[in-house]
């Protein structure tokens, strides 16, 4: 429900990261995003059919505060010459990594 979703968003440590280049790797994302804190995992968004990166990913931190700092300092700055967009995500669920490509 809406209320549960809001609660998840208030507590989550996961960010949705968009507007990435298709060539940006997990390693590059790791380098930039760990500057805000310890990253638990990165899940690359993949093209449903080709299974290749398609411009988004999920970054999960251990701590909420680190994720907050990421929104403050990484959101709107560049990685691989593209302006990275970050937003709260209620938490990664298997299957969500497949985008439309």
């Amino acid at each position: 429900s809406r209320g549960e979703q809001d609660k998840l968003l208030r507590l989550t440590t996961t960010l949705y990261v968009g507007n990435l280049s298709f060539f940006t790797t997990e390693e590059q994302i790791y380098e930039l995003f760990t500057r805000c804190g310890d990253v638990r995992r990165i899940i690359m968004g993949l093209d449903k059919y080709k299974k290749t990166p398609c411009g988004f990913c999920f970054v999960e931190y251990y701590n909420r505060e680190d994720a907050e700092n990421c929104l403050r300092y990484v959101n709107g700055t560049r990685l691989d010459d593209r302006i990275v967009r970050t937003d709260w995500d209620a938490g990664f669920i298997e299957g969500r990594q497949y985008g439309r490509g």
Partner: protein
Amino acid sequence: KRRRVSENQEIEDRLESLILRVGEKSTSSLESNLEGLASVLEADLGTFRLKILRILTDCAIRMPEKCTIYTTLVGLLNAKNYNFGGEFVEYMVKTFKDSLKACKWNAARYALRFLADLVNCHVLSASSLLQLLDNMIDTANEDNVPQVRRDWYIFAILSTLPWVGRELYEKKEAALEHLLVSIEIFLNKRSKKHHNALRVWASDTPHPQEEYLDCLWSQIRKLRSDNWAEKHIPRPYLAFDSTLCEALQHNLPKIIPPPHQDSNKYPMPWVVFRMFDYTDCPEGPILPGTHSIERFLIEEHLHSIIELYHLERKDCAAHLLNFPYKLKIPLEYCIVEVIFAELFNMPSPRFLDIAYGAMLIELCKLQPSTMPQVLAQATEILFMRIDSMNVSCFDRLVIWFSYHLSNFQFRWSWEDWESCLSLDSEHPKPKFIKETMLRCMRLSYHQRIKEILPANFSCYIPEKAEAEYKYAKEGAAALPGTAAAHQLVVSFRQKCTPEEVLNVLKDLPNPRPDDDPASESRFNPLKIDVFVQTLLNLGSKSFSHSFSAISKFHYVFKILADCEEAQICILRNMFELWYNHQQMMIVLIDKMLKTQIVKCSAVANWIFAKEMCQEFTKNYIWEILHLTIKKMNKHIIKLGGELAEAREKLARAESSESEDEEEDEDKKKPEDAEKPTEEMVERMEEKLEAAQGDQKNLFLIIFQRFIMILSEHLVRCDTDGRDYNTHWYRWTIGRLQQVFLAHHEQVQKYSPTLETLLFTQDLDPHVLEVFHQFVSLQG
């Protein structure tokens, strides 16, 4: 009745907004706004007295840059209503005392400054302020308290004098002189052993790196020699002189600062970072000199803007560029100097590195005509002076610069740094370029780095980060593990179990002699070699692939490497496969520490091993060591927190059982329900103690290895008659210093042990000095 409440609320809100906003841009003059506001507030003093007191005090502490505006307002109110003036003073004194008690040092300083400025507004008598300052001097002269506490009291007095110096000089010259003499005596006796540890640069040319109290003292002395005339602080009360003169003054009550508690945390000392003087900014307004009080006031103001807005980088940049006195100073230079001062602050910056990086990006975007140029000039200056920069700042500069470049298409005039090409590769300048490129590559990719550098800089292009899997290379057939490795690849592809892996490895011979007495266990390095290199090579596609490979075969790691020696063997094999991919090694070690495949002490011993000497001065090695130490520290902090929580729960449960048994059941917090038993707490204590034992052991290993290699170097240079002060020596002693400083809170606990076991008097004085500087930090 309800309407009444909401009406009052409305008025309160309006008053609050009026008070908060006074001094902001407005169509009428500040003076008429203040006058108007004073009349409004006077009329409401009856009903809203407490509210007004609270808002004014809050403003005083939270907006220190508007101090003189609010003191003027209080002055006007005091002239109209003497009792209210008295109540306000009481309120402010309470705030001052509470802040001291709560160790809110800046709030206390702002409260003190406000009280001092009330002398200028004829609310307080000069003599009662001097009495307070004298009491603070007495506090600073107490024995058997940490120097950081004593220093703070002197700093608080000195940083207040720009506001009230002139008034005290005119009214109480002799008493002011006496105060200054007391301060001078204090400063002359003061130990400054910490100074060298906190410097950004070892050299004092072209700008001295002054200790903060010494610098402020010089600025105050210069102010005194100018008869306390200061040109930076706006003083709106001057316009109301005739009104304020007629008001009656209050006396401060006797204020005795709260005594020292062992749990008190005081501000660390710092070094005043200076990278510019007026010759660096030849156009536009002149940069005030090092010892002019304006420089102190500007810097303090900029630091407080950063503190206030650091969570909102765009607002922060806008407020910095909107600095109220921007036309009188070369603002871009002041901002850049202050931001680098924070980034280079020792032992650590107060905010994340990336917060400053993001701030600088915003500043460049907001002021594209001037900011990028000043920042480029600053970078050039930092690069020119990098020879004597301490290694922590060197690291931060590399991290910032690579990040900045990646946000601006990696554009830089590398040709200007061509002269580096002829320098020794261990020299800080070429090393800075090399390390910056390694970081740039982490943020981009190999081909891009090749494109951004000029052709003759090819030696700075990092190797392509690829796995070197020896069992797939030509000539691999001759290696003893090749057959097993190939078999393992097949098994992995068929999604084998950990047991099956062990089975494949089972017949590999152990190359180590059977009766090696030095070894604690019978591990087989060949098994580890084949397993680690093959597994990690198969997972080489990405970090995620590697991580899942490790967690899938965690069991095999544990079986093959049950002792430290074997764990070092794992690290050695990881290095053999991945030596061209520093970032991969960092995340793999991080993973193996988290999953307890390797212990912290194994990582430390591996870093100092002979075979790693080629890597020893590279940044990533130290990134690994620091992440290892941090992991250990975090673990300790976590266990300590859990223990404290459990103890508290236990105590709370016991007291509620014995005292009020008829207490309402639902009043109890749900967490109280799970009351820990005595045994549980005891077990937690044991766990923490064991972890502290590990932590102490880790620090002992690290410091002992440092002492060994440094002593060896010094002795060898001595016998060979060579200069000991090589690049290697400076990097290594710098890294030793960095370990002490970066983890000082944790290392502090073991100071006595370190002193008796390792940093003994017979040690070379160069090495011992590093320890002494560290000890004096919280002295």
